[in-house]
């Protein structure tokens, strides 16, 4: 009994010592505790391929810095949604409430971005930095102080395309086939602003996200007077549209939104590739950009991922996630990994960050914490025996209102299916 008592005492004493030691060590550990970075992208649903590539690029960039920034390790926690706003919100909540992350990097698609922007407003001391979502209103109207976007939005991505189609391709009427949700609204808006102002006429064909049979719309378009088709679908929807357009024997010139002319589409096999060669598009990246930063990034990506299921060249989503990750890393370096005081210093550093995107484009944020950066005009060409998106023009430092004064741009109203931005020159 005595022996047992003494053993218990010894144990208690030991535990006490351990606690004391732990107590002493605590401040030091807190200093070096890892920063918890939550990733949110779509590994399910129509943009699963893009989401997968987003994580490839993020992983590659974190490996490069050995997952350490400002003296602190970064713990990356992966979460996935299916491109639906409610699912993205639930997963973001899980990241914040259960995984206790400091920063969320994501989401991937338009409506998800708006949902997370609204969610970020309810948070204190946490920050959401966009992944690849590109709805204009995420930052343009009613922005949240906790939501930052270093990637350009869907409207910005179309800069220069409308004018090119009207002036250089000499096409006076187009059929716009687009998804019926926030991101395509923004893209169609960006195209129409230029195209209609120049005098072009537009007929719209909307289809909900997740549509896989477009044959009825394609039949209508093929019979219309449109001189070209502007396709603003993405993911499997885009693939289905292009395949069925090819099968229908369509031969109108194709113009495309930014997530259409992308490796996620070009690397899938099928008859759509035939009709996509020669297609014109605009966006924040291309496969071939004459810029050393980009060539180096592509080289690294190929070395790391080509044998592990990666694309020939990183996808738009991968590059957008990387750009936003660069913003986070830059700010963390500025504040030496200090996220105390409700992340105030960190958020200030984010807002003032000047970074270079993987494409070599300079990026800075406006007063709504939205990126101002370069946009490329692209053409799909057959190079080295495969289809590649080649940049042939570059618009420098495009802002969110495409150069229009903000008040005037806001007066046009929010992009929607009933407000696709077609304002004739007269007004």
């Amino acid at each position, binding site marked *: 009994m005595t022996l047992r008592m003494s053993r218990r005492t010894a144990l208690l004493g030991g535990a006490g010592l351990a606690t004391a030691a732990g107590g002493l060590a605590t401040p030091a550990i807190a200093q070096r505790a890892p920063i918890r970075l939550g990733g949110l992208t779509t590994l399910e649903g129509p943009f699963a391929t893009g989401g997968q590539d987003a994580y490839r690029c993020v992983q590659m960039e974190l490996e490069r810095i050995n997952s350490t920034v400002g003296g602190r390790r970064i713990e990356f926690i992966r979460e996935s949604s299916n491109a639906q706003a409610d699912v993205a919100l639930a997963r973001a909540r899980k990241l914040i409430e259960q995984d206790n992350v400091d920063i969320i990097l994501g989401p991937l698609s338009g409506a998800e971005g708006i949902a997370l922007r609204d969610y970020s407003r309810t948070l204190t001391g946490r920050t959401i930095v966009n992944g690849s979502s590109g709805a204009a209103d995420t930052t343009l109207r009613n922005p949240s102080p906790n939501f930052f976007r270093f990637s350009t939005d869907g409207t910005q991505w179309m800069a220069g395309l409308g004018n090119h189609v009207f002036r250089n391709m000499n096409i006076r009427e187009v059929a716009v086939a687009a998804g019926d949700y926030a991101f395509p609204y923004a893209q169609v808006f960006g195209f129409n602003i230029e195209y209609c102002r120049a005098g072009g006429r537009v007929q719209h064909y909307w*289809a909900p996200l997740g549509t896989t*049979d477009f044959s009825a719309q394609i039949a209508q378009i093929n019979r219309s007077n449109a001189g070209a088709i502007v396709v603003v679908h993405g993911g499997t929807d885009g693939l289905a549209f292009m395949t069925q357009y090819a099968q229908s024997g369509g031969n109108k010139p194709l113009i495309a939104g930014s997530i259409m002319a992308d490796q996620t589409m070009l690397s899938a096999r099928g008859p759509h590739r035939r009709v996509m060669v020669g297609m014109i598009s605009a966006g924040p990246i291309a496969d071939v950009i004459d810029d050393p930063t980009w060539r180096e990034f592509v080289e690294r990506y190929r070395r790391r991922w080509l044998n592990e299921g990666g694309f020939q060249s990183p996808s738009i989503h991968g590059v957008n996630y990387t750009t936003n990750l660069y913003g986070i890393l830059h700010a963390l370096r500025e504040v030496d990994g200090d996220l105390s005081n409700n992340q105030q210093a960190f958020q200030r550093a984010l807002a003032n960050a000047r970074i270079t995107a993987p494409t070599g484009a300079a990026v800075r944020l406006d007063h709504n914490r939205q990126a101002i950066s370069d946009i490329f005009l692209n053409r799909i060409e057959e190079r080295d025996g495969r289809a590649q998106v080649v940049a042939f023009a570059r618009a420098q430092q495009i802002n969110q209102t495409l150069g229009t004064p903000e008040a005037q741009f806001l007066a046009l109203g929010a992009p929607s299916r009933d407000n696709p931005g077609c304002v004739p020159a007269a007004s």
Partner: protein
Amino acid sequence: MDLAATILLNGLTLAALYFIVASGFSLIFGLMRVVNMAHGSLYLIAGYVGYAVFEPLYDQDLWWAWYAGLGAGIAAAAVSGALMQKLLLGWMQGQELRQALVTIGVSIIAADQLLAFYGGTPRQFFAPDAIFGSTQVPLVGGYPTFRLVQIGIAVVVGVGLWLLLNRTKLGMMIRAGVDDREMLGACGVNVPLVGVAVFALGAALCGIGGIVGSTAQPLAMGQDGRFLLISLVVVIVGGMGSVTGTAVGAVLVGLAEQLGQALFPTYSVILTFVIMVAVLALRPQGILGRA
């Protein structure tokens, strides 16, 4: 006029695909009283396994690549269906709710396993040269040949199923089982074995749908939920367990979807459900279902 004809033809070809997939669902429900919530997963399994067989052969330009994919897909779906009945559902016979929940579980696991194994890249089969390209159809003009073949396949499946159910011994057992399982067992028929056969057959039909569907549309994650929902709607509209009813339901849903897409794209989904609501309100057992 020609646009109306095109939409009609589109609706019918889509209905053909829906019929192939939903007939398997209806068959399984008819005999087993199992609402197989993993029916969409069988579609995906057939598609992905079929594609794994198809692609290397296609790369070698073998003309029978597509047919090999079709065979592999059907086999994979049939085996999965039989295993599901044998290992999971067989020993909870008659407990419909529990079986439905188990199949939901199976569908979630199957979808994630397929994603982990095959990745998220969408895939698509290329039909053999003989049925690729377009055919001249009166009033419509050039029309994708494969979509016409789709109707042919559906007709063959429908007639075959009807013959099987009404003209063979197995069909007789299945029909007897629908009415009275115990009496069938008492007559010396191995009812559990018939159950496995029916499950395999229903799954094989879904497998045909998986390959045919993935030739006409991309094969990707999420298609499982879509085809499960369509099967449910088609079977509810047409009447559970009736081949003709399934065909009627498929035609209604297919036409509604295409018509909706041409007239009011955003709300086209609603039209399908309006039909379902109307049927449930006026004739809850389905158009050709038995009360």
